[in-house]
């Protein structure tokens, strides 16, 4: 007697139904939290990158995304520019904080990188990131290996010049593009309430 394969597989079908619904439940229960985690990864940095900001507002220009940092009163106090580019080993993803007039860097944050531990991954350290504080955003930055002298110079990490240069290049390119958007009026400038 030939058995019906569909009937034969009733267990599989029943299990699929059970699993499907439990997954749906998990999805429903956890999705908001996961989304929040993801968002937090970026937006949670805004107050660090732009002091006095309390929240951020997404600004989409073409395929680019920027964040306008707002203080409690809703006044634009700065910008957060996401940027990415090739590092020594793999892609480096950054957030760059700017002041309201987009003329000074107020901080950078490394979202993701796969540089060599102990060497290139020092770009995530506070010590390195602090070297970008209060640097001009309208002049291209450059890397010095033996201590920064001029205002637009960043001191490289010992043993990780390539990673340092990559970060600087990513910052330069992103800021140039952002400045272009500002100038062209694609983004409503902030700073003057």
């Amino acid at each position: 007697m030939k058995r019906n394969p569909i009937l034969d597989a009733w267990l599989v079908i029943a299990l699929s139904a059970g699993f499907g619904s439990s997954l749906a439940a998990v999805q429903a229960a956890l999705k908001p939290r996961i989304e929040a985690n993801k968002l937090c990864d970026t937006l949670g940095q805004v107050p660090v990158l732009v002091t006095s900001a309390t929240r951020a507002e997404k600004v989409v220009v073409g395929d680019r995304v920027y964040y306008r940092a707002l203080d409690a009163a809703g006044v634009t106090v700065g910008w957060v520019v996401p940027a990415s580019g090739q590092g020594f080993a793999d892609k480096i993803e950054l957030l760059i904080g700017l002041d309201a007039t987009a003329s000074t860097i107020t901080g950078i944050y490394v979202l993701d990188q796969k540089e060599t531990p102990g060497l290139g991954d020092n770009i995530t350290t506070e010590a390195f990131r602090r070297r970008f504080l209060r640097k001009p955003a309208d002049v291209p930055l450059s890397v010095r290996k033996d201590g920064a002298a001029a205002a637009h110079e960043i001191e490289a990490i010992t043993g990780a010049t390539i990673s340092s240069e990559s970060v600087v290049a990513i910052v330069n390119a992103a800021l140039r593009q952002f400045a272009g958007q500002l100038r062209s009026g694609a983004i409503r400038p902030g700073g003057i309430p």
Partner: protein
Amino acid sequence: MSSDGPTPAERFLRGILPENPVLRQVLGICPTLAVTNTMEGAVTMTGAVLFVLTCANVLVSLIRPLLKPHLRILVFTLTIATFVTIADRLLAAFLYDMSRQLGPYIPLIIVNCIIIARCEICASKQPVRTALMDALGQSLGFGLALCALASVREILGFGTWFGKWLGWRVLPVGLSERVWAPWTVMILPPGAFIALALLLGAVNWATARARARKEA
């Protein structure tokens, strides 16, 4: 089926050393290598495997009378994939950092040989209690291997132990680079392979020695 096989307690103990999945059976090598550059990774992975293996073993054991031989593997896979998805979402919700660090290695648990092997060898033939103890024993054995490897790698590679969660340093802070430096290679792929090779060698050596002692 066989009630005169190992007792649940024996199964539990066996999984930890004599039949350790990684060190004795050389199964599940990929996650073992991939997540052991920090203790945190090792512990999280162990937790995920513990969760998936326990749930899958228990469920499979429960439905074991209903299993058709030719659909067996399909059912196992379905079960495992579901629990892995749940584990993955739980991690993303509650341990977002670790979820990002472990990346694809959590979903890869689906194809982890240990779990299919336990479903096949044990859970589909044994009552729930045995299957549960087996799952716990194997997971702990897996965890033991992972932690052993991660300890070596994190201490040599970073000079810390549970550095991210607990911040314990093994090498003193501010040790001069001229005196000693952590071995970065241990955190990278080559170090993983080499450390596991030596760990396997050490375990085999110790086992052979113990056996020789017993015989002598």
